[in-house]
């Protein structure tokens, strides 16, 4: 049958790229269609949230703490030139809350959580577990994808708050060792400059990143091609694609929040 021969509109590569974008769009829309439909798998969402925390807590603690400490250390020389080391806590706090904590959390989560969602769903696809759900009249999208995306959207903002806290502790350690500032003085000084807008912007960022990590990982895994190779590919492109999107979202959200910051 020659009718099966593929006809390309703009050439093979561009056509495939456009089809991939369309596919992703359909997946994205499907999420919103299914999230409020039918029975919600609360138990599975809780389990996924737990798994997300469990997988990334240690790494986030470590990275967050070190980031806070190192950033403080690096900022001190430029401030001490003006004799303004007393501003150190508020400077560091602004940097952490506005930029560092959301980004550190997002990148670590993309690496740890995004890849494991991609691999997990990918191997379920490859070993026909997803097909098995479908033929037993259970909606696999609802059970596997919706739960993971919702869990990421909830858990990653929580992780971001945790990361901010740990980073501030790292900064405090460095400041108290050098300037002898007390715990209370440090935190009073730190939060002096932080506004509601900063916090809401960070929350918005973390929600966007969490959603991105969840949906990109799920998309890659859910549509993994057959074969073990497909699992590796799904995990890999889950990380690469979500990091790419996270940076784009970062730029957009910062632009929008600066618009409100007069």
């Amino acid at each position: 049958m020659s009718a099966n021969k593929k006809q390309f509109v703009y050439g093979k590569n561009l056509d495939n790229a456009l089809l991939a974008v369309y596919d992703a769009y359909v997946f994205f829309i499907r999420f919103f269609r299914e999230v409020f439909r039918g029975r919600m798998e609360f138990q599975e969402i809780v389990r996924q949230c737990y798994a997300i925390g469990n997988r990334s807590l240690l790494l986030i603690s470590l990275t967050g703490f070190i980031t806070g400490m190192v950033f403080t250390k690096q900022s001190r020389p430029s401030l001490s030139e003006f004799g303004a080391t007393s501003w150190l806590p508020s400077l560091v706090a602004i940097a952490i809350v506005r930029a560092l904590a959301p980004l550190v959390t997002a990148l670590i989560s993309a690496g740890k959580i995004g890849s494991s969602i991609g691999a997990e769903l990918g191997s379920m696809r490859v070993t026909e577990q997803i097909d098995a759900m479908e033929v037993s009249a259970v909606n696999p999208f609802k059970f596997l994808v919706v739960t993971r995306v919702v869990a990421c959207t909830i858990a990653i903002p929580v992780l971001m708050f945790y990361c901010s806290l740990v980073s501030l502790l790292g900064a405090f350690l460095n400041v108290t060792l050098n300037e002898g500032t007390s715990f209370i003085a440090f935190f009073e000084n730190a939060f002096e400059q932080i506004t509601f807008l900063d916090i809401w912007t960070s929350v918005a960022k973390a929600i966007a990143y969490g959603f991105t990590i969840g949906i990109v990982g799920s998309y890659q895994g859910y549509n993994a091609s057959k074969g073990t190779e497909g699992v590796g590919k799904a995990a890999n492109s889950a990380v690469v694609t979500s990091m790419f999107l996270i940076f784009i979202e970062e730029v957009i959200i910062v632009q929008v929040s600066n618009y409100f910051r007069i």
Partner: protein
Amino acid sequence: MEEDFKPGEPVIEVRDLYKSFGDLHVLQGVNLTVTKGENMVVLGRSGTGKSVLIKIMVGLLKQDRGDCIVLGQEVSKLEGNDLRDLRLKIGFSFQNSALYDSMTVRENLEFPLVRNIPNLTRAEIDEQVEYVLDAVGLLQTINQVPAELSGGQRKRIGIARTLILKPEIMLYDEPTAGLDPITCLEINELINEVKEKYQTTSIIITHDLTCARETGDRIAMLLDGKFLKTGTFEEVFDTDEERIKSFYDYNFIQ
């Protein structure tokens, strides 16, 4: 759509079915009728499209053309709840078992049950899970995870997982592949027991002629995308067709 099928009435009707993947023409004009209460065995070499055929019957794949009518409905035209209702009546046992490997055996079995029959009490769930596990003879594995089971045990758990929804039709994809002869015999017995206990109509895909002879009321031989011959075991293999004979010889010399 409640229709009562009398014995002998066609439950699955496949007419002139075609399916290709790109340039690979897998099914090329398949015809098959399976009547109520019958065990139909589908034989064929690797890659002839046996799995593809039964996947079309549950709507996992769509044919390019031709009809696939199951319980009076064209599967490719069903969507949403209608497709769901049809799938509830079909048990599909996967070639590689496809057990959910993050769940225990108990959770594997509960999974389709609690999602399709809401408002069961804990006791009712346990009772049904234990009943089907007992039917496949693996009650002792209830708290194990799939990784701890042998290939034959997985196959049987896979069958149990489909039985828990009390299907009218069972589709077995190579239930005995890769198992030792004794386990094969046990699986053959299980298939026959299922037929009696659950009054199912079944399609059994296999390469294994012993399995075909033990379980099949009729046998269909898939070659080059078509059913070359359909009939009882003796009818199919009493032939001069070279390829059928070589299939037979190869199997029993092995």
